[in-house]
């Protein structure tokens, strides 16, 4: 199996005709963990949603390749089947479908007809992964995200990540709203996934998640572009000094795009 690869070239993304991502390029491979950091309103979540194919975001320019194939030509489910995963900041609630049924449908969607995962194996895997994430087994039988607290939803996203075993995962602010214990658990789940066949793009405001999931590279986003890249030390400096020094360095006054206020 070749190493997973996600390559983005000069990407432009708009929402309601307003350009949010303005020419963004980067590349991530299996075995690597990248962090994309930046203040609010700089286009981080737009980037992740657009890569997954969110219906509200329109790619207006540039290219994206997933393992050499044109990602932007694929439907949302094809992107997932190819091995892309997005852990969402605000996952939908779907009434009437249990978490377990949903997960099993998702796993089987990737498999050939006749090669569906056996119920026993599925339950075993699910139990194991829920244990890692310290989730009560009752969550398997609750309706998908319905009535889950913010933290429970985040754990549920990581549970899906672990069950679906994608090649490249994007975690969109998976740390927001988590207390330190929950953060550690979520990080434990992600760290279990680490392998040469798995690449991970972590989108976050804060450095604290990166204490538990060590990134290989750190990118800073402002005004819809990556304005600076470096190693883990960059995240530490951001945590200590904030973003102003970068703005100064680059002569940026307002780092946001598409801000409402």
């Amino acid at each position, binding site marked *: 199996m070749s190493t997973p690869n996600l390559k983005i070239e000069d990407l432009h993304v708009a929402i309601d005709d307003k350009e949010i991502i303005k020419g963004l390029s980067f590349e991530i491979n299996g075995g690597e963990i990248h962090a994309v950091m930046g203040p609010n309103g700089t286009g981080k979540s737009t980037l992740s949603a657009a890569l997954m194919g969110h219906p509200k975001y329109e790619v207006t320019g540039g290219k994206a390749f997933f393992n050499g194939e044109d990602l932007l030509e694929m439907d949302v489910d094809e992107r997932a089947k190819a091995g892309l995963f997005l852990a969402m900041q605000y*996952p939908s609630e779907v009434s009437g479908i249990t978490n377990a049924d949903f997960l099993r449908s998702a796993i089987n969607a990737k498999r050939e007809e006749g090669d569906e995962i056996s119920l026993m194996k599925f339950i075993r895997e699910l139990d194991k992964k829920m244990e890692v994430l310290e989730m009560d087994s009752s969550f398997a039988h609750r309706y998908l995200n319905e009535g889950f607290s913010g933290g429970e939803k985040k754990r549920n996203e990581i549970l899906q990540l672990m069950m679906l075993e994608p090649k490249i995962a994007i975690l969109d602010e998976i740390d927001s709203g988590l207390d330190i214990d929950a953060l550690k658990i979520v990080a434990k789940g992600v760290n279990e996934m680490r392998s040469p066949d798995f690449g991970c793009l972590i989108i976050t405001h804060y450095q604290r998640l990166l204490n538990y999931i060590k990134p290989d590279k750190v990118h800073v986003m402002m005004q819809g572009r990556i304005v600076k890249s470096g190693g883990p030390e960059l995240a530490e400096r951001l945590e200590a000094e904030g973003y102003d020094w970068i703005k100064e360095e680059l002569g940026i006054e307002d780092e946001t795009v598409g801000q409402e206020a």
Partner: protein
Amino acid sequence: MSVDTSFKFDKDYVSKFSSERQEPSWLAELRLQALEQAQSLPMPKPEKTKIDNWNFTEFKHEVSGNKQVAFHELPEAIRELIGKEEEAGSVLVIRNGAVAYHSVTEELKDKGVIFTDFATAVREHGDLVRNYFMKDAVHVDEHRLTALHAALVSSGAFVYVPKNVEVDIPIQAIYFNDDGETGIFNHVLIVTEDNSSVTYVENYLSTNDESPSVANIVSEVFAGAGAKVIYGAVDNFAKGMTTYVNRRGRAARDGRIEWALGQLNDGNTISDNTTHLVGDGSYTDKKTVSIGRGDQKQNFVAHAIHYGKHSESYILTHGVMKDTASSIFNGIAKIEHGATKSNGEQTERVLMLSEKARGDANPILLIDEDDVTAGHAASVGTIDPIQLFYLMSRGISKTEAERLIIHGFLAPVVGEIPLESVKSRLIEVIERKVK
């Protein structure tokens, strides 16, 4: 409007039909009178649904089914509905208007329970049937279709449960037309005496996708004092069938009638499900799911009328609309003056899968008494694109994601249905219809 029903069926035809079946004279007379009324009575006027050009006339009335067969000779589709012969309990199968299979457990017979087809019931239990048939629940002269029903009723079932008898295993009826043209004039009469209980489950099926026919169905359910009736139904007529179905209940003091209806016809349908809560402390619960597809038009009424004090009604309707189908869902809780401390609750939800479909949810509360509680909720919505995105982002195809959302939407009703057999049959039919 002129719906010409005058008339392939004249007095001679109806008299002959009745006498060939050796019916008691009261029924022969009732039929003739009804036939006469049918000529002058207007058609029903379902709210917001035009039925002027619906087919109510083109069907064959002569019964084409003719013989009873052994269980293993029934069509496979029917055997699947019944389950294993030895576990099926009491079963009645009517095929093209005639009894194809009938079995009643010894236990039921010993307890004095009657479960038989309509034609046999009027011959063998005429007086009992006469006491209830189209008198206090559904009236002959409500409109042309009720009158036609009385004039032409050809089949159905009669269930009688004596005082204090509890029937533990659901009794099942299957009404099945596969000759393409025979109309269904079915009358189901369920009478439960005080403190008895019974569960009745019916399946309606037909194969006439192309050829036109008519179903004119009336069910009358009487729950005696303290009696409990659970009535499950899955309607699944083919496209060619125009259906009028009226299921009505009357509950005496502390009587309970619980309806679980899967309204899954493919043809035009008018469905009225009304319960009269006559006695103090009486109770009804109506759970219905429906799916509209193709260009079918449907009109559903779920209606509870409270007369008794402390009476309760709960109506829960979920409908899914596809293609260019159009459905009107009317939920009505009527609380009459004097029905103090009563409670009427209703919820109607419609999920639209197509911009060209139409779905109206109309919750109506009519209250003539101050000292009551009542509530309603209604919504009509489409599939949330963000929900769809979420499911698809896990590799689930759009079709499968929509299927999951539809199942999820219907689950609160399907999941609440107290009968496993109805539940699994519903899931199966829903699966087929939402594809």
